[in-house]
């Protein structure tokens, strides 16, 4: 039953997306992209409605079911509405043919990632530390609290960060409430959906922008990022945030390819809003995205599209942002990091040791992302990417300059903002870095990989010729000699 509720939430997202980007009901890259993004959009809508229903009508299961049912029916009605304006059908970009072994390698990477996820879930069915100290704990408060559900945001459990937004606890609590069971499968299934939909968004977006071969190679690298898979299986909210960061930046890349159709930007606004509804770090991302997008359009894009694009971005962002503001003003206690006194912050900023500690983590930690550890042999993905670049080099299509600038600038501003937060705010920078920095990098990792594969050349692989073909090819050369 819980899988049915989760499927209905996903269907809610799919209905809305198919209305925005209509396509025939058949398997295509277009449909694959919509199906993947639907996970985040559907879950985002369902959890937002759950919170609003709780806040406005209280914990009444019938009202909850009715609101979700009406939203689902509306989304499905939109899905089947006659289409006013059709978007171009998104398809693979032209490129070199994809040898069978790339398809096989992608399938092996996917199977390995799924196996790792299942293995981790069996080892820790309740997830890891933050799952039961923060995310699932909040869901338990919301479900078990009854009329006292607001205790989930009590200052008396400040250690559990009660100001964190509710996308993940909200969807878990919603399904637990509707199913009348606190099944441990729910958070595990939510993590699974997010991380593998993230892979779907990545492969489909890269396929549309750079072709099948490049997207398959990128997909293999992404699925081999073990720390991302394990973090999702640990039931942390970091994988959902990675999903929304990638979806937002990917949609803005697609916007550059289809400049006439601003629906990509509307959807990017919605996913950016859901990023902020997932974790507080999403709010920093939102600021970074707005600055980066404005700069990228002015510097590399068509300046005339700046205002229309920002209007559409605001349109998509409006609903989730309104819910976040409502939650923060009405329910959430003050953020623990922001409640520091100015004197403390000033003393941290003038402490050179803190700057060095944070800088050291920024230099070392990227080499540990998704590290392959086989005995004592270390082969960090970032070094493999360096090697890949050495052989193939970058070649950025003029159409992709604004997209690439948006991604890189967003990531740079986010990293710079997090750097300052580590230096200025928390008590023990070393402890904060060791417990959270890898996950912060994971938020940006899929989008960073997207930028890399958007910029790097596609390998030109030709099928080995048969001996007869080789002889034929050699003849003209021999004659001319």
């Amino acid at each position: 039953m819980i899988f049915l509720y989760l499927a209905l939430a996903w269907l809610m997202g799919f209905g809305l997306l198919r209305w925005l980007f209509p396509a025939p009901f058949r398997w295509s890259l277009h449909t694959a992209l919509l199906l993947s993004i639907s996970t985040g959009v559907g879950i985002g809508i369902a959890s937002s409605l759950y919170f609003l229903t709780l806040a406005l009508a209280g914990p009444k299961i019938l009202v909850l079911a009715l609101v979700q049912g009406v939203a689902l029916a509306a989304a499905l009605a939109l899905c089947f509405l006659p289409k006013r304006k059709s978007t171009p059908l998104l398809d693979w970009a032209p490129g070199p043919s994809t040898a069978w072994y790339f398809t096989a390698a992608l399938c092996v990477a996917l199977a390995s990632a799924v196996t790792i996820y299942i293995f981790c879930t069996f080892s820790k069915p309740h997830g890891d530390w933050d799952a039961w100290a923060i995310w699932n704990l909040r869901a338990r408060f919301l479900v078990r609290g009854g009329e006292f559900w607001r205790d989930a945001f009590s200052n008396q459990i400040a250690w559990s960060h009660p100001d964190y937004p509710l996308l993940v606890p909200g969807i878990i609590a919603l399904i637990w409430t509707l199913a009348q069971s606190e099944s441990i499968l729910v958070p595990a299934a939510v993590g699974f959906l997010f991380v593998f939909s993230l892979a779907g968004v990545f492969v489909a977006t890269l396929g549309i922008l750079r072709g099948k071969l490049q997207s398959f190679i990128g997909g293999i690298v992404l699925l081999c990022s073990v720390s991302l898979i394990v973090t999702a299986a640990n039931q942390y909210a970091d994988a959902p945030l990675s999903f929304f960061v990638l979806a937002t930046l990917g949609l803005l890349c697609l916007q550059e390819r289809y400049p006439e159709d601003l629906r990509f930007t509307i959807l990017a606004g919605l996913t950016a809003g859901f990023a902020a509804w997932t974790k507080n770090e999403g709010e920093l991302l939102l600021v970074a995205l707005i600055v980066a997008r404005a700069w990228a359009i002015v510097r590399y894009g068509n300046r005339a599209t700046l205002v229309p694009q920002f209007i559409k971005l605001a349109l998509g962002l409006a609903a989730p942002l309104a819910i976040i503001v409502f939650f923060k003003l009405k329910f959430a206690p003050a953020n623990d990091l922001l409640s520091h006194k100015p004197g403390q912050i000033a003393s941290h900023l003038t402490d050179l040791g803190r700057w060095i500690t944070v800088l050291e983590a920024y230099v070392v930690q990227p080499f540990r992302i998704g590290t392959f550890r086989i005995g004592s042999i270390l082969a960090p993905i970032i070094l493999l990417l360096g090697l890949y670049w050495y052989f193939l080099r970058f070649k950025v299509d003029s159409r992709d300059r604004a997209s690439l600038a948006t991604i890189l600038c967003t990531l740079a501003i986010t990293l710079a903002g997090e750097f300052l937060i580590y230096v200025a705010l928390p008590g023990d920078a070393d402890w904060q870095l060791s417990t959270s920095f890898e996950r912060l990098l994971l938020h940006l990792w899929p989008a960073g990989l997207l930028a890399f594969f958007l910029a790097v050349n596609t390998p030109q692989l030709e099928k080995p010729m048969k001996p007869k073909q080789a002889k034929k090819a050699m003849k003209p050369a021999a004659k001319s000699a």
Partner: protein
Amino acid sequence: MITAYSYLQESHAFGVANFDSRFEALHKNMPARSVLGYVSDNPAANTQSQAEFYLTQYALAPAIVKATTEEHFVVANFHSNSPNAAMLKAKHLVLVQDFGNDVYIYRNSTR
């Protein structure tokens, strides 16, 4: 696969299911809304101790568990059925009920 295995070797499984079942009897007997103190025989400032405190909160939600004995009722998460009487006396804790599985409710006689 090897990397995933090494991740799991490095991290600890603290046993959420075990805490849920140990605290089940207390959880069923609690009022809809309660605030409890917390006492344990774990060493202070230790990762395992901190994890057990969080797991106690997770098991007893929606009750609020505070890492102090300065509440009227205090939940005890012990690892033996013969708690340290001197420590309990020093903290002014008087036994209210034994819920089995080394889980107890105490009352702070000064509150």
